[in-house]
């Protein structure tokens, strides 16, 4: 009854085929099978946001998605958006603003922040806080994180024609 299920999907541009038990969540699949350990596992019940990845372009909790549910989907992890250069400015701003601290929440914060910046050209601090409200930082570095995102909003706006 609980036999493995064949799945096929794209992770960071690479086609992946695997056979997984239904109970395996996407976060564990990414970390343990693909060694994409940038996606962090914190609470495992959808509260902390450390496991945030993109599935078909939308951010989701990879601890609340079974790997079998990602069948036929396109998944992007922090490694993918980092290697492509998509969030290089955001990462620099996090470094410059000391928004990293222990770093555990950082991948999820970056995924959530980039999601907001794709949807809104000029979010204010309140909107930034609301969009990140599903991501915990146990170092409580929120002020610096919001600063870094606000800085990125300004630099990206400056690049517009």
């Amino acid at each position, binding site marked *: *009854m*609980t*036999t493995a*299920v064949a799945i096929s999907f794209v992770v960071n541009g690479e086609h992946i085929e695997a056979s997984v*038990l*239904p*109970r395996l*969540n996407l976060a*564990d699949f990414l970390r343990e099978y693909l060694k994409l350990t940038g996606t962090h596992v914190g609470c*495992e*019940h*959808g509260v902390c*946001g450390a496991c*945030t990845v993109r599935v078909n372009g*939308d*951010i*989701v*909790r990879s*601890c*609340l*998605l*079974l790997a*079998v*549910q990602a*069948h036929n989907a396109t998944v992007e992890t922090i490694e993918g958006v980092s290697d492509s250069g998509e969030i290089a400015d955001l990462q620099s701003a996090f470094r410059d603003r000391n928004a990293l601290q222990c770093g555990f929440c950082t991948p999820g914060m970056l995924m*959530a922040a980039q*999601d*907001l910046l794709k949807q809104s050209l000029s979010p204010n601090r309140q909107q930034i806080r*609301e*969009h990140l*409200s*599903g*991501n915990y930082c146990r170092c409580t570095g929120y002020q610096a994180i919001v600063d870094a995102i606000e800085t990125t909003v300004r630099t990206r706006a400056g690049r517009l024609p």
Partner: protein
Amino acid sequence: MKASAFAYARATSVANALELLTAHGDKARVLSGGQSLLPAMNLRLISPELIIDIGELAELRGVAVKEGVLTIGALTRHVDLLKSSEIAAHAPLLTEAVAHVAHPAIRNRGTIGGSLAHADPASELPACMLTLEAILIARGPGGERRIPAAKFFTGIYETALGPQELLVAIELPVSPGSATHFFHEFARRHGDYAIVGLAAQAVVRDGRFADLRLGFFAVGDRPLLAGAAGKLVDVAITSGVLSGALSALDEELDPLEDQQATPAMRRHLAKVLLARCVSALLGRPDLLSGATA
């Protein structure tokens, strides 16, 4: 924690999902967005033998308006409710409420049908269904059943859905153009489950309520359509009338104790919300004296 082992079936159609439910009944659980089901499984609160994944049944997704009725497919995601111009136009209370449902990454997966079938008494959408007089449409081996929201929620995580039934759609009457609404919840963090919340819709004429529906949530084992509203309809609202309504609300509440609040605190917050709601909908700040939180 991790979920315990289970078998998995990806439903290929509503008929196929119903066949699986008929064969496995209460040993199976339906997975749509999974944003409430998977935490419950990860915390080992439930351990179903079979997961029936209906996530790919596109026929259950979408919003349509026809002849004064707004029909929402059960698999419509929170993010789609939030962005829907039909819902903003015809059930604006729902648009406002969905902004309080969890966080963006969860709203991208969670569905209205999943939230209603899960029936967490602290969640926003069940109370909205009571306020908006929704009909929940369930399909089972014997065909389709239309269940009024007032009869759908029967307890904590309990609904009128049978083990072989699937919630397929929700119907809402289009809100009258003259209607106004109020939504507010007290929560530890924006997007968390409410400590106490209120989803209200009203028709105000000449400074009086011609109609008022008050859907409270997190005040008991299921959402509550407060009878106290009756004290406020078709009368001139004075602070005395409001006090009477607050007492009537107190009588009908049966709040639960949990880590977030005592029953006394929930009673207090529910009354604060009622006073704020009446004051906001009538534009009467004078009614708020003494009602603070």
